[in-house]
């Protein structure tokens, strides 16, 4: 099943309101004005302006929120009985991520493997992922920090998306790339202002080709996995590469593929004192607490060792387990880093260093 539709430029709000009417939450990129503005995904409602720019923060939130309640408990006491109520229902609702980029969508594919395809399925993740439809805007060009094409992706790569949207003159061409996407497009009423896209699909293909042509040539990083594994114990290499790292979490928290989390139990405190919750929140392997053990021992005390783990995980361990890198090449870790630490440069240096040995 395949659906190709054309949406005129002024039809966006109409399509979005039809999507809302299907009972789904729409997460769409919204521009936050500031001296340094940012674009973040937020629930869309009628009349809210949105943008199709590449977001500052990827829409990982849709499947793995910054913080979620895994379970909450409440104790109730009567004169003669006491009961403890536990609620571990996943917080999930049908959602459309509208206006992700191919690198963001690829992030969902990367997260799916450990959360859904491993020996243990994460019920919270699954509840959200199964109800998610991803509308991806294909990119018009690359930029100085993008490197999706180094990793097998590209400005119109369909991995992780359900519908690809390509901007052409006068509007957007919407192409379903999964059955889920096609069903949703086919179910849209006339009010969604969707027209048959077949006559203009050629224009979309041309726009995509143009985007591919705008990319800088990609170096060959096929040997990254072995190269990085090979220099695991070369402390000097990692030290030199991470001199300027500040050990903050910008690279991990802005990453569409990072999925490490922490679990914290919190009581309600003064809000009642009879209950509490177990929270799962994003964790950050750049922080020394990430590996600090209960005994106080910390096997990764130095930022160089922590960065080694980050790079190795993305380019060596994860590929070993799952056959693909856990990096989509979105470049957010580079452009959001306060010292522009460049993971591409580390990977290339590792390949070169391993070759020199």
């Amino acid at each position: 099943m395949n659906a190709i539709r054309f949406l005129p430029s002024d039809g966006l709000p109409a399509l979005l309101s039809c999507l809302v009417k299907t009972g789904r939450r729409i997460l769409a990129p919204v521009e936050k004005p500031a001296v340094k503005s940012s674009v973040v995904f937020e629930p869309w409602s009628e009349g809210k302006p949105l943008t199709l720019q590449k977001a500052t923060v990827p829409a990982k939130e849709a499947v793995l929120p910054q913080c979620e309640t895994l379970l909450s408990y409440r104790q109730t006491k009567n004169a003669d009985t006491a009961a403890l109520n536990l609620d571990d229902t996943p917080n999930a609702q049908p959602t459309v991520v509208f206006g992700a980029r191919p690198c963001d969508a690829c992030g969902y594919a990367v997260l799916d493997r450990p959360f859904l395809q491993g020996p243990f399925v994460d019920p919270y993740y699954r509840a959200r992922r199964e109800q998610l439809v991803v509308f991806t805007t294909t990119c018009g060009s690359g930029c100085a920090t993008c490197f999706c094409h180094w990793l097998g992706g590209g400005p119109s790569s369909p991995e992780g998306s359900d519908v690809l949207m390509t901007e052409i003159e006068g509007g957007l061409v919407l192409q379903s790339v999964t059955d889920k996407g096609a069903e949703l497009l086919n179910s849209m009423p006339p009010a969604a202002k969707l027209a048959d896209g077949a006559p203009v699909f050629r224009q979309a293909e041309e726009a995509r080709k143009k985007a591919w042509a705008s990319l800088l040539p990609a170096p060959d990083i096929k040997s990254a996995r072995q190269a990085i594994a090979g220099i695991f114990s070369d402390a000097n290499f990692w030290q030199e590469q991470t001199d300027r790292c500040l050990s903050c979490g910008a690279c991990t928290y802005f990453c569409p593929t990072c999925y490490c989390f922490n679990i914290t139990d919190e009581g309600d405190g003064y809000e009642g004192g009879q209950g509490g919750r177990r929270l799962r929140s994003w964790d950050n392997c750049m922080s020394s607490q990430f590996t600090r053990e209960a005994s106080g021992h910390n096997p990764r005390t130095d930022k160089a060792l922590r960065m080694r783990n980050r790079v190795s995980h993305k380019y060596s361990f994860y590929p070993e387990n799952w056959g693909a890198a856990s990096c989509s090449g979105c470049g957010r870790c580079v452009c959001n880093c306060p010292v522009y630490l460049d993971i591409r440069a580390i990977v290339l240096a590792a390949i070169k260093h391993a070759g020199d040995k």
Partner: protein
Amino acid sequence: MPVLEGKELRIVGFLCNWCSYGGADAAGVGRAVQPTDLRIIRVPCSGRVDPIFIVKALLNGADGVLVSGCHPRDCHYSAGNFYARRRLEVLKQFLPVLGIDEARFEYTWVGASEAQLWQHVVTTFTNRVHALGKAPRFDAVEPLLKIADMALTALRPLGTGKNAALPKLKEAIKAKLPELECVIGWQQGYDEARTVPLFARTPQDVDKFVWGPFNVNNPAVYLPTFRGKKVGIVVKGCDARSVVELLQENLISREDVILFAMPCEGTLDMARIGEKLGRYTTVDAVVCDEASITITADGKEHRFCMADFAQGKCYGCATPLAALSDVSFGAPVDVKPVSATPPELALLDSLSLPERMSFWRGQMGKCLRCYACRNACPMCVCRDYCVSDSRDPHWMSQLADEREKLFFQTVHAFHLAGRCTGCGECQRACPVGIPILALRQQIGRVIEQLFESYKAGTDPAAAPPLLTYMPQEKNIHERGWK
């Protein structure tokens, strides 16, 4: 349900064990009639009350907070309340920037035998809080996004530093390099419009040093990590203030650091440059003349005049050349300091209290808790032991709500009170552009007013004002309870 539900407000009292708690006890024993709104927490000394206790209470639903200790010069521990007085006065004047009415917080001194004074204090304060009514809840206000006006006039002509004596500097660094672990400066980053810190260990590394308006990072942030090793550091005037502050606090040793300085002609506000270039573009070329930079990105030319696109701090900078240095090239620039309100702070000044709360709610909504602000700060020296990550004590909830995020910012700002040199790295590092520097600037302004124009990082021998006290404070006046 308590009888007074709805009539009582939530007021938290921190009372020193030796005086005020005794005073309150005496009032109770003496059957002195008092309002019942106050919930008392007994502390060993008013000096034990960290200002973040008070902020936490106020952000989490307290309608008022009262701190009461021994009278000055009567502290059980000699000087606890002297320190408390300075901190609490700074806090009181800081609260309005968060949108919290400062009348909701008060500190005072009540002796153990002063039952009547206690009765008077608690009644007066409770009446005052009742007159203000229930405190607005941070999580109930509507977010408000406002942008500061960055059109500023510099105290001196700003330029690109094109004619700086960089070759001479490199020679001098190479001469010193053998005795140093490394020399920290700047090199080009992933494109010509970005520079990044460089740690030069060989003469070839030294050749990579660059000097100019893209050198935004503050290299002083790395100094404490080299403690015990001798390192060199290239500094702008503002960076040197951070070095001086580190020296003031004995966080580094003077003999372990060699400062290389050149007069800075201003650095670029990469936030505003980024807005013009576009978030995801490719820089093709950077051309620089004496007063401006022309950046070509995605084939489009953008010209940036230094006078229009410098970092906020550069406009008010009166120390372009480091006041403290070992090797310096270029003459000091004579600039008369003028006190002016920084742009983000001016924006907050122009807002009402409820608007300020809305402003922070809107801003903190973007925060991902990556703590780039904290880690980019040269004065943040707790490093791996920050309360934000601690589970014991569990100071901050992991819930991703704006209140917790703003609470962290106030913790950070308060730990920097009297120490922050205003380098602005916290705000520059923020990937989502939250104007958090304004919180530090508000504290800086209060410190300047209270402690005779004290500016952090200007005198290596000066004690930071919150680490010392005067038995009789010049600008902190006892408030009467009449």
